[in-house]
């Protein structure tokens, strides 16, 4: 089973989303490095995303492309990155998701990935 772990955090809160180079930044990065080691080859994919002020939302209606500045939804916590984890079942996925540093600083949404045979 593949699970997408979507990492949400408040990007306006310096505790959850510290600036690179700040004191709070280093331990979080170290946490991600550690997670990468611990999860090892269970990580099928994973990326960190630039903040939502760089996002563009694209919709096509009646054949016409409209673009909007900003993320799909204005929420308190923002999608900041994701992993795709290869796990035996949801318990394993939850246990791993709980080790992602932002589980303690925001929210990890765990979603089973649909695999097309």
């Amino acid at each position, binding site marked *: 089973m593949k699970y997408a772990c979507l990492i949400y955090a408040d990007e306006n809160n310096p505790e959850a989303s510290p600036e690179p180079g700040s004191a709070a930044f280093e331990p979080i990065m170290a946490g991600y490095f550690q997670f990468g080691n611990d999860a090892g080859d269970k990580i099928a994919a994973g990326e960190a995303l630039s903040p939502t002020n760089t996002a563009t939302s694209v919709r096509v209606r009646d054949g016409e492309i409209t673009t909007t500045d900003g993320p799909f939804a204005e929420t308190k916590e923002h999608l900041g990155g994701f992993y795709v984890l290869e796990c*035996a*079942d*949801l*318990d394993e996925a939850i246990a791993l998701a709980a080790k992602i540093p932002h589980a303690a600083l925001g929210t990890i949404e*765990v979603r*089973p990935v649909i695999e097309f045979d």
Partner: protein
Amino acid sequence: MAEDAAQDAVEAAIKQWPLEGVPDRPGAWITTVARRRAIDNLRRQRVGRDKAAENARLLERLIKRDPHEAALTETALRDDQLRLIFGCCHPALSIEAQVALTLRCVCGLRTQEIARALLTTPATMGQRISRAKNKISTAAIPFVIPVDSELLQRTSAVRHIIYLIFNEAYLATSGEELSRADLAEEALRLGRLLTRLLPDDPELLGLLSLMCLSHARRRARTSAAGDLVLLADQDHSKWDDMLLVEGRTALESAMRLRPIGPFQLQAAIAELHTSGSQTGGTDWPQIIKLYDRLVDLQPSPVAKLNRIVAISMTLGPLSAIDELMPLAAELSQYQYFHSTLADFHRQLEQFSTAIPHYEQALSLTSLEPERRFLLGRISQCRRGDTGDSH
């Protein structure tokens, strides 16, 4: 071997249920399938493996219910039942789904029965169950006994679900009937099953004891006319002696185990109420001590309220009102806060102060027996009658 086979069966169940619907008695069904799978697996490995062939014959005999092999069956059954319960009460499912799935898959109730018991329509309940089953199979929620590091937390979640089912039976939020005994029976059955499966969990025994002691009084709790009867006025001959014995036995075992948790304390309080009512002398100081510990462990406003009621029995209603008032904001929507405050004022013969609090309590319940009871209190106050002492 038995473990693997049970796991296969549960996987088969998860794959099959969304397609074929849950069988009538899923627990038994899983065990049957598990045995059949175990035999199949053993047959496949038989070549050159005498031991495996022997095991296969052993399992075949089990199916024919050879009493000498009962122990092995019980172990397999125990694991199956635990897997099923932990799976149904998996925290990745909503509480409503956990309750519904437990009643469906562990208790074997039909969807219509669950809908009736939980005051909803069969269509809604069917949807809730099929959504839960869909999540179980899509997200691969495992039906396994949790690993040791998670066992305590997961067992606590299972207890919570059982208690919810039990409370649901007593706290019908509307309608004519005060209790739905059938749901309480299911909760009791679950409690008994779980204490057999996990005999060393102090709080499970506490929960079972609490449920037995409360349920033992069910027939005395309402009059023939369907009116509420308070504990002090209950006809003891209507209490269920068997359940009282079961409750007390469970409490004794629970109190020998550590740590002491909220269910054990509540069961101990229920026992003191019960025996006190039977002997005509309730040990209020001991009850207050237990409430102190309960409030320490679980500082809920409802526990605080119950503690204050116990205090009123030793220190009188005036001191109790002083203790109660700081909870006013927190409990403004809780009917028992208002009826308790009204009771204290009535006992002090402050009838014109009591009446509006009874009226407030009345506005917060739609349960007919409780409404009649409160209306009775109001007319009592209008007559200037303190009535009984409680």
